């Protein structure tokens, strides 16, 4: 079911990106009164680009994924898209989405859902997981609470009865009852009334849930990139729970035996035997971590009572001793408990968690958006500045050209990573500061020389001279006449610059001089992988896989674009 939904979202993303956005773009242009006309040359190039299939498909994949990722908050988030309780309706994830895109303003958007309004007592923010639990199974959730409340009431009533009897005894003796007894009685009676009211309230709340008037709609993936997964057993970083060959330990089962004292340190240990009643038997090896699984009661999540690690293996390899690493509070480890090297085999944390216990899947997804968005920003801003500078140099020539050339030569030698590191070691640069830094220090120069050369050549052409002769302003000549004819190097270079900027961001984040520490980023994940190099390979492999795949696709686009816009024909004689 979920799989179909994911597929649907992806298809919608592709359709929206490839059909919807061009349509909207043209519509806006038409509204603005600009008629979109493409030259036959440009159309030929686009046709040629589309004919190089690997490049074109990469283009479709990357752009579609990026536009889809713009809506990540409603697709991958730890907040529901919509919650409903009676006639209270809220859209927490949608609010997140608007907060992301309207980052420049705050105020009305910085509200939260109060627990009280959604049937859970308290003024604080609503715990969505708790709410969802109530919605999913109100009987099971409310039953114990109601029972507790009822038993509380009956206990209190019995107490009241006792106190009354005592007072009656006093009165029968003709004495005044002691003051504190009377006070107690009054307080207890009040309490009973309150509890009864509470019970009524609980009943009315339960009724709302039972009647199906409360509802919750979750995003496709229920965990976000900011909250750590406290619901998972054991300590972070967790291995992927989805079976990924090489990353997830092979499934191996065993059974706990009786308790023993470990030989060294006298710590508590237990005997184990490999294999379980149902499972296969494979030899144990030292330093393997096992999760002790509680016998499943219903079809819900498997629960973990504790974690043990193999310290001693017997000669035949099928039995040994384990040390108890941790026991879940409120649980005990008994002989006969089933052990497994994997605690889950579900989509609960398919790609594992980072060292702070944050789910890796949302980190990768949000990291994709940040990386691609960042590089796009740097690319566009850098090209605007670079094209302007190059145009001025090439068009005016003379002293302007010489001075700017010298300036670029000097500026280009500034070790930019060094400077960013110095500044970033002192202040945490945000997304925009980093973009501006990269543009000013580096990205604009890459294109300037080529644009300058193009302008130099085009300026001598007749059509430009004619335009200048007819008295058109310099700016118009540059932007309207020359620029469209000198876009080839700009476009064919862009994907490769894009790759560079993604690498730059990943490097900066890896070193800890990039985006603020709370922002999801591939580089920081890599850094954590670097710290847990020997124990958590998934923290290296997954971000590298994400980055390399993205960059690989972009390079494919780049090759195709270069082939389509700037074909090199090598003649060869034999």
């Amino acid at each position, binding site marked *: 079911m979920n799989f179909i939904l994911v597929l649907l979202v992806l298809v919608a993303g592709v359709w929206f990106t490839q059909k919807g956005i061009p349509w909207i773009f043209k519509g806006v242009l038409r509204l603005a009164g600009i008629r979109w006309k493409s030259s036959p040359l440009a159309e030929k190039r686009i046709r040629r680009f589309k004919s190089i299939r690997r490049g074109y498909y990469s283009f479709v994949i990357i752009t579609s994924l990026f536009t889809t990722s713009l809506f990540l908050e409603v697709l991958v988030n730890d907040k529901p898209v919509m919650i409903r309780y009676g006639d209270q309706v809220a859209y927490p994830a949608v609010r997140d989405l608007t907060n992301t895109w309207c980052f420049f303003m705050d105020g009305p958007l910085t509200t939260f859902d109060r627990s009280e309004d959604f049937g859970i007592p308290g003024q604080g923010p609503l715990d969505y997981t708790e709410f969802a639990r109530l919605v999913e199974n109100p009987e099971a959730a409310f039953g114990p609470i109601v029972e507790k409340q009822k038993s509380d009431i009956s206990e209190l009533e019995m107490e009241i009865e006792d106190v009354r009897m005592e007072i009656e005894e006093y009165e029968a003796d003709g004495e005044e009852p002691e003051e504190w007894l009377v006070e107690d009685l009054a307080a207890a009676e009040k309490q009973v009334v309150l509890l009864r009211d509470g019970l009524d309230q609980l009943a009315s709340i339960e009724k709302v849930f039972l009647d199906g008037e409360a509802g919750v709609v979750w995003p496709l993936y229920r965990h976000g990139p900011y909250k750590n997964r406290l619901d998972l057993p054991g300590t972070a970083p967790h291995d992927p729970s989805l079976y990924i060959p090489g990353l997830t330990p092979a499934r191996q089962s065993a059974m706990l035996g009786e308790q023993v004292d470990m030989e060294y340190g006298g710590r508590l240990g237990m005997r184990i035997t490999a294999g379980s009643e149902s499972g296969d038997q494979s030899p144990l090896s030292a330093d393997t971590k096992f999760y002790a699984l509680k016998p499943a009661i219903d079809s819900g999540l498997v629960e973990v009572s504790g974690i043990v690690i193999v310290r001693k293996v017997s000669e035949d390899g099928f039995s040994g001793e384990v040390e108890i690493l941790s026991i879940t509070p409120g649980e005990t480890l008994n002989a006969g408990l089933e052990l497994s090297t994997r605690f889950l085999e579900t989509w609960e944390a398919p790609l594992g968690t980072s060292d702070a216990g944050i789910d890796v899947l949302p980190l990768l997804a949000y990291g994709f958006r940040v990386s691609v968005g960042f590089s796009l920003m740097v690319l566009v801003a850098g090209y605007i500045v670079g094209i302007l500078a190059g145009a001025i140099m090439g068009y005016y020539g003379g002293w302007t050209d010489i001075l700017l050339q010298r300036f670029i030569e000097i500026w280009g*030698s500034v070790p930019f990573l*060094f400077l960013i590191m110095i500044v970033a070691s*002192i202040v945490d640069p945000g997304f925009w500061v980093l973009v501006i830094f990269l543009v000013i220090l580096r990205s604009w120069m890459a294109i300037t020389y080529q644009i300058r050369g193009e302008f130099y050549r085009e300026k001598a052409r007749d059509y430009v001279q004619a335009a200048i002769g007819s008295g058109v302003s310099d700016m118009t000549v540059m932007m309207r006449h020359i620029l469209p004819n000198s876009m080839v190097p700009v476009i064919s270079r862009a994907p490769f610059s894009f790759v560079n900027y993604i690498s730059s961001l990943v490097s900066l984040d890896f*070193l800890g001089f990039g985006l603020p520490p709370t922002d999801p980023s591939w580089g920081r994940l890599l850094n954590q*992988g670097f710290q847990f190099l020997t124990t958590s390979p998934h923290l290296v492999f997954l971000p*590298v896989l994400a980055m390399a795949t993205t960059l690989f696709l972009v390079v494919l686009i780049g090759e195709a674009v270069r082939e389509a816009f700037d074909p090199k024909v*090598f003649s*060869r*004689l034999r």
Partner: protein
Amino acid sequence: MSGMWTYFARRLLLVPITFLVITFMVYAVLRVTPGGPIEQLENQMRAAAAQEGGGGGGGLGGTDVGLDEKAREELRAYYNLDQPIPIAYLQWLGVYPRKDRTPVTLKEREADPEFWDRVEVAWVNFRETENAYDARLQNSAAEFRGSTLLVEANAALPGEEAFFQRAGELLSEGLASRSDLKQHLDSKGWQLSGTRFMRPVTDVELAENSGWAALVSLASDKDQAFENLGSILAEQNKEASRRGSYYNVQVGFSGILQGDFGRSFTYNEDALDVITQKFPISIYFGLIGYLATWLICIPLGIGKAVHHRGLFDTSTSVLVFLGYATPGFVACLLLLVLLGGGTYWNVVPLGGFRSEGWGLWWEQGEYWRCIKDQVHHTLVPMFGYLVGSFASMTVLMKNSLLENFGADYVRTAFAKGLPERRVIYVHALRNSLIPITAGIGHFLGIIFAGSFLIEKVCNIPGMGLLGYESIIRRDYPIILATLVFGVLIRLTGNILSDFIWAAIDPRIRFK
């Protein structure tokens, strides 16, 4: 030819200018940004104090531990932070005289008792006035900021109620509006001291309040006494600090032009020495990486060009694209995870230049073990450098050879009836190696200075890691020294590349 010489002369002329601009920029950035050596020291002291106090001190208590004004002043002088940026920069460069302070030794003092007695009298005089001043300052609720006397604006002055009230509001809003508060107070010259507002004393008040007037006069007495002390010491080119240490002062030029890069704050060694220790390590890995790149990329590029659009070309293109898509340090990380002995295979060590016992083994004559160990440590960084320049180098080689295939002289060679192998591997290849050879200048930077990402990942104690760590620790002399060498190598490398190009390819003419 003469046009070319002027071209290179101009390029060389530009080197010093570029160098000056870059170093000045970095110098200024280092000076302007907060978190300098003194603040680092204070943070360390605070951390130490917090640990001693069992962490009970908390946020506000920590501020008490900072350096006092005098110590700060002395440190500022020590780190040359008391000069304005341009002058300090010129001093660092070695073209502006700098005061070199060395402490006066006891022997020197015994050699000239008469002079030092005079100094001692002046010092005692200064201490007395200072003590009197301190005592009075302690009793008053006033404070000195520079030369202006500040008193607490506890009750709102007539006409200033609104101002005071607004300041109080801003203060209660907490740290978020601290900058607003500062701006607000600055507009009237007020200051924040703890949670009190201090306002400057007007001249009229000063005339009326004898206590304040005495304080001001004591302050000037104290400064006067210190000046007296200074003028006595100046007779013999000496100086005193306010904490009572005496220094010999020598005015002279000592900056990077004289080979003085300053002392490293963290290593407490001459910065130049620290760097020269690290250079060979970076050069070793850089050179090996570069050689590996050559050995792999050139044959691969040739093969791709010869079989252009063939099966070999297309299949190796995937490798090239992957090379574009993987930065060098990421490749190192991957290798370390796979081969570093964690979850998978245990083939290579997790980093470092050599094993710890390497020197010992060498002395004991276990050369084979030494070589094996060195090779083990070299594999991963070499692969990183290789991946870093693999794609661009291969494509450069391929395209350059393909371009030569289309050239007239190749056509002529074919027309003469030469065998294909000879045309490709002798005629065309020699010319297509020119851009690759010339590129060596651009690699100089990496060969000498290392890539700090790869050095960090592989834990190689080379120049790159040194630069990275010096930035983290704010070790200014080392930061600047690595910058100087990095920039110089890069600048000369680029010119060298063009020069080599022009020297081996007579068709290339720069103008």
